[in-house]
């Protein structure tokens, strides 16, 4: 049985989504090219990568944690991927004597590194009981440093065609169906399954709902949290790999601030920072709407510097509205 909602409450609970879709429609009316095929593909590709990152962060948020190392881990993943996916004939290769590696092998290598970062996050949080905010903030800097060391602060270009094609290509060459969208969809379905149909998913919601009760109920909270932060790392690895292909190159600045976008997308999509609540479908909507807003601002010719300000405000408002739901219930 669903609680009856008054219309006003419905508006407030979905205020961010309604506002942003409204804004997009207005922009579309003012700038008709907004509804073009090219722009649509752009939206899907942008959303796809950020959705994968947001899904990774969502597990942390649902268990009342967070992951501020997300963006930097994505960046590191992209740099590693790009380094090993440079074309053989590219003149300034990082490893000139390295032949062409199988793409799957590089992907697995990237995933190994990012899952390792997630594991370290998990160990510090679950075993040492360091607050997730601090633990992952520290990790953010560590990963950035590691990335600087690894790349020597040099940008990496000259990527292989088959790699960049992951991003530029589309199914049956239909513009509307870029590969990136497909990857995101597959990941979304798998993670939906994990969240809703496996004990691990239920344990995750339980820990977020009440960690003490979870412990008493025999849930291995340490193991569950480790799994969650490792899964998050897995997502960042995949996202970073795709991001490298999408950007046609990589540098240490890649992925900066993505964790906040991901957290914003989750919160707009109904993942509660209070823990225990959140759905994959909601995250998709949240990220999509957030991207829509960003593209709308681009179309209106808003300078990038200003879009940061707007993004920050959106994040704060989204969390404020979320908290409001729980305060009102007292």
């Amino acid at each position, binding site marked *: *049985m669903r*609680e*009856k909602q008054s219309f006003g409450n419905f508006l407030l609970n979905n205020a961010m989504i309604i506002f942003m879709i409204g804004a997009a429609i207005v922009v579309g009316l003012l700038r008709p090219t907004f509804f073009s095929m090219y722009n649509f593909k752009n939206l899907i590709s942008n959303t796809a990568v950020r959705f994968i990152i947001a899904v990774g962060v969502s597990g942390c948020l649902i268990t009342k944690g967070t992951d501020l190392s997300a963006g930097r881990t994505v960046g590191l993943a992209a740099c590693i991927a790009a380094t090993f996916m440079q074309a053989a004939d590219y003149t300034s290769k990082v490893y000139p004597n390295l032949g062409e590696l199988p793409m799957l092998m590089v992907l697995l290598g990237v995933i190994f590194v990012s899952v390792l970062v997630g594991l370290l996050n998990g160990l510090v949080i679950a075993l040492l009981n360091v607050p997730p905010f601090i633990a992952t903030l520290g990790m953010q800097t560590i990963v950035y440093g590691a990335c600087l060391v690894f790349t020597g602060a040099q940008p990496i270009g000259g990527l292989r065609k088959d790699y960049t094609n992951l991003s530029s290509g589309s199914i049956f060459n239909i513009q509307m169906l870029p590969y990136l969208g497909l990857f995101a969809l597959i990941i979304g379905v798998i993670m939906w*399954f994990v969240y809703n*149909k*496996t*004990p691990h998913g*239920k*344990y995750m*919601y*339980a820990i*977020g*709902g*009440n960690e*003490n*009760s*979870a*412990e*008493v*109920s*025999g*849930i*291995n909270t340490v193991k569950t949290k480790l799994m969650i932060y490792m899964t998050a790392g897995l997502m960042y690895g995949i996202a970073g790999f795709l991001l490298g292909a999408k950007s046609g190159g990589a540098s240490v600045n890649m992925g900066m601030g993505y964790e906040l976008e991901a957290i914003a997308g989750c919160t707009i999509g109904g993942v*509660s920072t*209070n*823990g*225990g*609540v959140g759905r994959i479908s909601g995250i998709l909507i949240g990220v999509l709407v957030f991207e829509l807003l960003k593209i709308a601002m681009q179309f209106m010719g808003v300078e990038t510097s200003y879009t940061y300000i707007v993004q920050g405000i959106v994040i704060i408002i989204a969390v404020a509205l979320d908290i409001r739901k729980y305060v009102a*219930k007292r």
Partner: protein
Amino acid sequence: MLEYVLEMKGVCKYFPGVKALDMAEMHLRPGTVHALMGENGAGKSTLMKCLFGVYKMDEGEIIYNGEQVKIENPFDALQKGIAMVHQELQPIPERSIAENIYCGRYPETKILGLIRTVNHKKMYEQTGALLKSLGLNFDPKAKLGSLSVSQMQLVEIAKAVSANAKIVIMDEPTSSLTRNEVDTLFSIIHRLKESGCSIIYISHKMEEILQISDEVTIMRDGKYIGTWTSKELTTDLIITRMVGRELTNLYPKRENVPGDVILQVEDFTSIHPKSFRDVNFDLRKGEILGVSGLVGAQRTELMEGIFGLRASERGTITYLGKKLRITRPKAAIENGIALLTEDRRGSGIFGVLSVADNVSIASLQQYLNFHIMLNDKKIAQLVKDNVKKLSIKTPSIKTQIMSLSGGNQQKVIISRWLANDPDVLIMDEPTRGIDVGAKYEIYCIIAELAKQGKSIIMISSEMPELIGMADRIMVMCDGRVTGFVDGEQMNQETIMELATRFAS
């Protein structure tokens, strides 16, 4: 002098889906102790939170000192001379007693007449004098966290007194106090009364109510039932008016037959020197073992130790002839032991999750397809069976558990454990904060489980409940087992004597 210092009339308060208060009333005479009674969910706390400005009432009026007033928030209430001692304490354990008492209204001095600073000297002096006048022997500079929960409760009451309140609301103030502390509290109440202060007293303990109060207001389902002087009331009369029906049996008939010993605890000792130590007891199949003791007797700690939530230094647990090593609850559960914790909200329910998730969470491994996928159908069936079997009142199995009443929440957690089919069920204060009607249902469940051959360990602070339910009672004092009573010996005097064996 006015007949009433405070009147609340026609108070209505709506929460999503519920009418929590429906034309509630309250008439408080100056200088009296006025008990507010009703089952859980009757709206007592809600009414008091409206008075204290925590909630805004949707309808109704408050007449205070003969004038109609609006109370916007707790600060406003305090300014007007209304103080409240909360059911759930909200202390700041890392700060001193004095700082807790004067929190938000520190005595100040101004440096150069400009910069406001806290006058610590004055604050400590005033606190010292206050505590002394109330017969409390605490150091004002001590960290609040160094006190026991019951001592903190007394500090909380001192805080209300220090606000020079005209009305003090006490919401279940004795729920964690020992007998001696209750006496201290009562003497504080008498002192307050003499100074012309009125007290609104919420409690479930009938004897206390009849002892301390002048008048009693009874509420049921958010409605005002009536106000009587305590002299014309008896425990039975109060219960009848609270539930709105006659309660014939307080406890169900028990048909369990204790069999062989299945669990032996020997020499069980905590890693903390002041917690449980040298504990020896055994538990029979199909037995209800009561555990009695005062607050601080370490009963909860002992049971949590057995369950693997707390560490033990030495001792053995032998279960069906097998020595167990339990360091985490998971191990206890896998061996067929279950623990219903004392703090339902803190370590029992998953508030934001559904009734279904709350029932199934500890037994999900039994409902897997292909070792990974949950069988939703089977789980729904399990939940529905339990909802029916324990008559859990919920609109749907998908309802969030926090919207259910305390009694129904407790039943949900009991079904969570039953889904695992444990042999030993440890229940820590299973009826705390549950209304009279639902208590009886919980007793029936316990009696039925014992009849089925499950062994029950039941901790309770309500002695009549233990005497009514248990086959045998283990009494603890200061972390040690001081004795076992059964049969004829099961009376309050014997138990009390054992429970205060080492009391200073």
